[in-house]
């Protein structure tokens, strides 16, 4: 029976995976991927779905489930791929048993991210098939195909989406669910034990599979050509969601043929055949100019290829139907120009948020020193960089606050302070703290604990109720693990403790602990 449902792109992916007989999803929250795991948590109690501590643990656990013969899904935002990369790349060397799909949600325009890296490069790097849906319906349909492909090729499959697909709703026709795979653990050890002798053999086998992977792209039901009569001056190669922006501009009316690509590696023969009937090609792809660069290799450097590198499309940021229309030579009939009485409205920490009290206290104490530096991290509290606080001096990657503070202290910066959230601390801060403790670095670490993963909407935080034990377990002396409640009336106590711990020559941890206002209000609403 076919049923039509209104689904976010993320929800279409989740339901597609469930209907493909998924046994487990492994993920750390990250915009724009979070809603995939949440949908599975809310709709499929029979599927393993608890949040993981970080993307690397998620990737490894999913590989273990695949080893046991079952279908597993790993979800993360694009920068999570950097964290999972060791396990991800090597999973292509071991190969898989049960189907394994790695979902990377890229964020062109950096709506909620610190870069716009394009995960398709990771797929090429690991030498595995990459799928990139153009619509919510295709996302649903493609997941089942991804699991079949993964089990057929005995390789993980990378599934790449962008924010605009992840967070947009559309009607999706859904089918019947498949049963889960039976438990069927791998019996052969040679390709799972990556000692050099085995790894060389496995890598050679991966290289050998490339021809078949390429042939799959050539025959993919998701790649197709929309030709025109005769030879065209311009043809468009449209990747993933970019296909929609092209079609919105009605290329058929302009006599422009389109080659839609949703499966990689790039199908060279199809591209060559398409290019033969065009004088030039415009590559339209969201993210970095991945296909555009590769087309020069496929078509030769004399063939005119245009795109983001040539300035026909903007070099950075997400595509829009307007930017694609402009590249196709369509002038937008705009009636109104930008308003005059308009100011930017950046996000801000919520009223009543405990991070506010932490920054008020920290700013007060830091101002008493000439050269205090405060290293920030990734989460709601990164908003402390903006006015009125302007409290942090850095935000780079998950966990970097502690290790950067340590490096700066090693170089002589004093006071050197790290501010990190509870979930970020367990994600990637603990190992850095161990380095600092072992080196007796002169740093003060603030673990601002709001008992949740707040930025992404309030998911469970892996270390809740365990932070003092973790810090002491890593070797910190208990008298330098201080807990405070960040509310305005405690300001004197908090500033006194920060001062004392800055003056202590060694590692100290201060844990301001108060529940996130958003999760608190949600609990109160649900109680009613």
């Amino acid at each position, binding site marked *: 029976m076919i049923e*039509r449902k*209104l689904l*976010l792109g993320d929800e279409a992916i989740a339901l597609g995976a469930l209907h493909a007989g998924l046994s487990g999803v492994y993920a750390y929250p990250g*915009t*724009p991927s*979070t*809603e995939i795991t949440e949908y599975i948590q809310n709709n499929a109690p029979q599927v393993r779905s608890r949040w993981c501590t970080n993307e690397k643990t998620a990737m490894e656990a999913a590989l273990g489930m695949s080893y046991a013969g079952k279908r597993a899904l790993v979800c993360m935002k694009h920068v999570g791929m950097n964290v999972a990369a060791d396990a991800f790349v090597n999973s292509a060397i071991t190969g898989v048993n049960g189907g394994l799909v790695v979902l990377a949600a890229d964020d062109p325009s950096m*709506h*909620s991210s610190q870069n716009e890296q394009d995960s398709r490069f990771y797929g090429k790097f690991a030498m595995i098939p990459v799928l990139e849906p153009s619509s919510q319906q295709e996302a649903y349909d493609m997941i089942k195909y991804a699991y079949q492909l993964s089990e057929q090729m005995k390789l993980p499959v990378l599934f790449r989406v962008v924010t*605009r*697909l992840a*967070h*947009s*709703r*559309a*009607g999706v026709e859904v089918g019947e669910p498949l049963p889960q795979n039976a438990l069927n653990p791998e019996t052969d050890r040679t390709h799972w034990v990556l000692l050099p002798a085995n790894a060389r053999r496995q890598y050679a086998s991966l290289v050998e599979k490339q021809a078949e992977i390429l042939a799959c792209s050539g025959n993919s039901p998701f790649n197709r050509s929309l030709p025109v009569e005769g030879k065209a001056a311009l043809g468009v190669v449209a990747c993933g*969601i970019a*296909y*929609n*922006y092209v*079609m*919105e501009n009605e290329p058929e009316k302009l006599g422009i043929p389109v080659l839609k690509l949703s499966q990689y590696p790039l199908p060279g023969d199809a591209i060559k055949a398409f290019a033969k009937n065009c004088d030039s090609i415009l590559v339209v792809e969201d993210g970095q100019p991945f296909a555009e660069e590769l087309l020069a290799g496929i078509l030769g450097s004399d063939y005119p290829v245009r795109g983001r590198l040539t300035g026909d499309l903007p070099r950075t940021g997400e595509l*829009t*139907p*307007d930017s694609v*229309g402009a590249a196709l030579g369509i002038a*937008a*009939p*705009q*009636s*109104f*120009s*930008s*308003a*005059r*009485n*308009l*100011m*930017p*409205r*950046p*996000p*801000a*920490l*919520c009223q009543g948020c405990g991070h506010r009290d932490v920054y008020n206290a920290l700013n007060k104490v830091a101002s008493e020193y000439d050269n205090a530096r405060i290293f920030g991290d990734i989460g*709601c509290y990164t*908003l402390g960089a903006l*006015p009125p606080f302007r409290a942090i001096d850095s935000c780079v990657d998950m966990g970097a606050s502690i290790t950067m503070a340590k490096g700066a202290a090693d170089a002589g910066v004093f006071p050197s302070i790290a501010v990190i959230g509870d979930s970020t601390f367990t994600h990637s801060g603990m190992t850095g703290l161990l380095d600092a403790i072992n080196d007796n670095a002169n740093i003060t670490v603030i673990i601002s604990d709001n008992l949740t993963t707040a*930025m*992404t*909407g309030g998911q469970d935080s892996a270390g809740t109720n365990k932070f003092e034990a973790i810090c002491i377990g890593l070797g910190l002396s208990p008298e330098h693990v201080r807990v405070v409640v960040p509310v305005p009336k405690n300001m004197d106590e908090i500033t006194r403790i920060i001062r004392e711990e800055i003056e202590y020559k060694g590692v100290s941890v201060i844990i301001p602990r108060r529940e996130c206002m958003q999760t608190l209000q949600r609990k109160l609403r649900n109680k009613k």
Partner: protein
Amino acid sequence: MKKDIILAGVGGQGILTIATIIADAATAAGLKLKQAEVHGMSQRGGDVQSNLRLSTGDIYSDLIKKGDADLIISMEPMEALRYLPYLAGDGWIVTSSHTFRNIPDYPEEDALFQELGALPHVATLPIEDVAKDNGLPKSANVVLLGMAAKYIEILSVDQLRQSVVRIFGAKSEKMVEANLKAFELGLAAVNSLS
């Protein structure tokens, strides 16, 4: 037939509820739709928007082209102006006149309303006051939906009304009653404006 709508506001004002109601009505009516939302960092008090596209035919892009929006529905007057380049020449702006000031450099109000008032098709209402005066402080967004109802056109006012019943019916009878009242207040207000 198509209708491209931009919903605008500040994170936390409830524009996604308006989008959910319209999308539900469109789904029940058998229309095609795409609805791009903002999740993540901007939801913390920043500007938020949703592109809602309804059509009897296929829809490709999740985003609306500049100059193509038939309607801007906004919970805040400056946020309505943010999407002006997207508005079609004969498009309508339906907005709350209640300013939300969480930035230090918010524009001067007289100039703001003068610019808004000089546009050809604008309906404004202090929806928060209307909602509060009628004992419905949490339903200001549905007052706004009631105001916008007659401009949505591709859906009838009654189809939207039925969707209000369905969406809030999942919560409680009391909420259905309150939000239906809010919807009718908005609708009546617009009819008295024109």
